[in-house]
């Protein structure tokens, strides 16, 4: 699902050069929910941005869903993301003017889906995250947890192979955080995977692997066996 080999990243040049990733390699297979942890400044966000194709590494190669994105143009990478990757962020980043169902459906429409089908799929996704009663509410009329559920629905409605999340529970209370992670966990099948950046140890119970980073390096990669 994801493969990264010898990834290095340095911001700036010359005397101002700041290396943030050092020879990072990892693979994530379908069926895995992987947590990426580490202290602030350890390189988690840079690594996930590279794996999502949002920034290019200084060196190294990255494959996403069987495609070598480090050899692609920006447009080609965008098409890979559009077709195969869903995103959930720390903040919901929903359009305040749109209702919950429109926030989900419009992203599906951007993927080329007909408006009618997009609304059907958006409806299903919101029902799946427990928001059947909030379809026509705007983000301002929803709680933080409900907004994050909408953003999970937005990410999953397009049936992506890979879900990338960044601190998706950090702004939520304990119960809501666990509910959100439960939604993510149930999405993982033999054909899908998730990579979640987090500081939240409560989430470890949902993970198949926990990769820890420090100073731009992977310092541990713990696989969890499900009984």
């Amino acid at each position: 699902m994801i493969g990264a080999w010898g990834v290095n990243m340095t911001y700036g040049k010359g005397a101002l050069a700041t290396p943030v990733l050092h020879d990072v390699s990892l693979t994530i297979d379908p069926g895995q929910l992987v947590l990426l942890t580490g202290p602030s400044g350890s390189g988690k966000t840079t690594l996930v941005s590279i794996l999502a194709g949002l920034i290019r590494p200084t060196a190294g190669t990255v494959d996403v869903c069987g495609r070598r994105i480090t050899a692609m143009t920006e447009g080609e990478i965008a098409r890979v993301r559009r077709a195969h990757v869903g995103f959930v962020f720390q903040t919901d980043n929903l359009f305040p003017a749109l209702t919950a169902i429109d926030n989900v459906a419009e992203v599906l429409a951007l993927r080329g889906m007909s408006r009618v089908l997009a609304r059907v799929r958006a409806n299903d996704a919101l029902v799946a995250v427990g928001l059947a009663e909030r379809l026509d509410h705007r983000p301002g009329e929803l709680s933080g947890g409900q907004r994050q559920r909408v953003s999970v629905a937005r990410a999953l409605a397009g049936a992506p192979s890979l879900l990338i999340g960044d601190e998706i529970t950090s702004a939520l209370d304990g119960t809501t955080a666990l509910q959100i992670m439960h939604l993510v966990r149930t999405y993982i099948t033999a054909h899908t995977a998730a990579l979640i950046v987090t500081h939240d140890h409560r989430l470890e119970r949902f993970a198949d692997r926990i990769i820890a980073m420090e100073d731009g390096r992977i310092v541990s990669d713990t696989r969890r066996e499900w009984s």
Partner: protein
Amino acid sequence: MIRISLQSLLFERGKLFAALAGVAFAANLVLVQAGLFFGFEHASTAVITRAGGDLWVMARGTQLVDFADVLSPGVQDVVRAEPCVERARPVIFSWAQVRKPSGGIDNVQLIAAEGAPGRALPWSLDQGLPDDLRAPMRVAVDAADLHRLEIPDPAIGQKVELMDRSVYVGAVTHGIRSFTVVPYLFADPREARRILGLGDGQATFWALDLRDPGCAAEVRASIEEHPDLQVRDREEFEAMTSHYWVIGSGAGATLAFAALLGLIVGLVVVGQTLYSLTESRSRELATLKTMGASGRELAAFVLWQAGFLAAIGSAVGLAWAFGLRMLVAKIGLTVVLDGPVILGGLGVIAMMCALASLASVRKVIRLEAAKVFK
């Protein structure tokens, strides 16, 4: 993207109304200024256009219809001697004074002409008929000038002291005003000569209808052999007159400057609004970019908003301009709002909105998708 774009715009009502007001203001100013420009142009040349003719004969050195020497009676023989001239019609266009009942004196322009076939002079009559001016001592006056000339309403039959002679209102026109807003009084040529003290056959211009327009150059050259005469095509004379008033007087530049000011105000307000909306939604737009939205799709967010503002703002501005046109008509000003003026004005507004959107389009295209991870 159209739904995201327009709903985001409609959601921010304060910004929406500010931007719409800016576009409407700019559209109104552009349309009204352009309408006034063409209204002035029309006002300055309306009599020439209406009097018609292929060629106009006038005293040498004449630059415009409003200031011309009276031609000698012999000129009619000169022009009628041309074999290609089918009809030579006298046009009298002269300054005159009206003594008002209160004792004051006001300048007017006395106009008399034999209209071209099918083109009565004066036109646009509110009361009376052109033939009513054939009766002795009759003039036509515009409804907008009645108050200024202290002519009681109803005006028909009222006495006017014109050049120390008593004449009577035989007809009332509507909306025939000069560029300078000096009242036009229309009379029959024989009556105009009597009032102005001109002899038979005298006129300020001769409008010539040619048997064959192809012989215009020949006729012109032949008449211009006379050292005191010059000949102009009617369109050329219209252009000379309108250029003198609209361009030479600085009125055109003043109108253009006002329109430019409106455009600048509209440009700034719309540009500011679009940029502010883009800025406030940059995180959501970056999220769409992360999810694979292309630069073109993100640019559509701004462009749909710009298009919406242009369409609705222009419609409001157009309605406003029509309202103003009715208002200024009461003081005798003509604002021409015909198809070409409206299309041209709205085209300028569309370009203004497109220009105003450039900074925002540039911003969304260059959005850093990775910012959503920060």
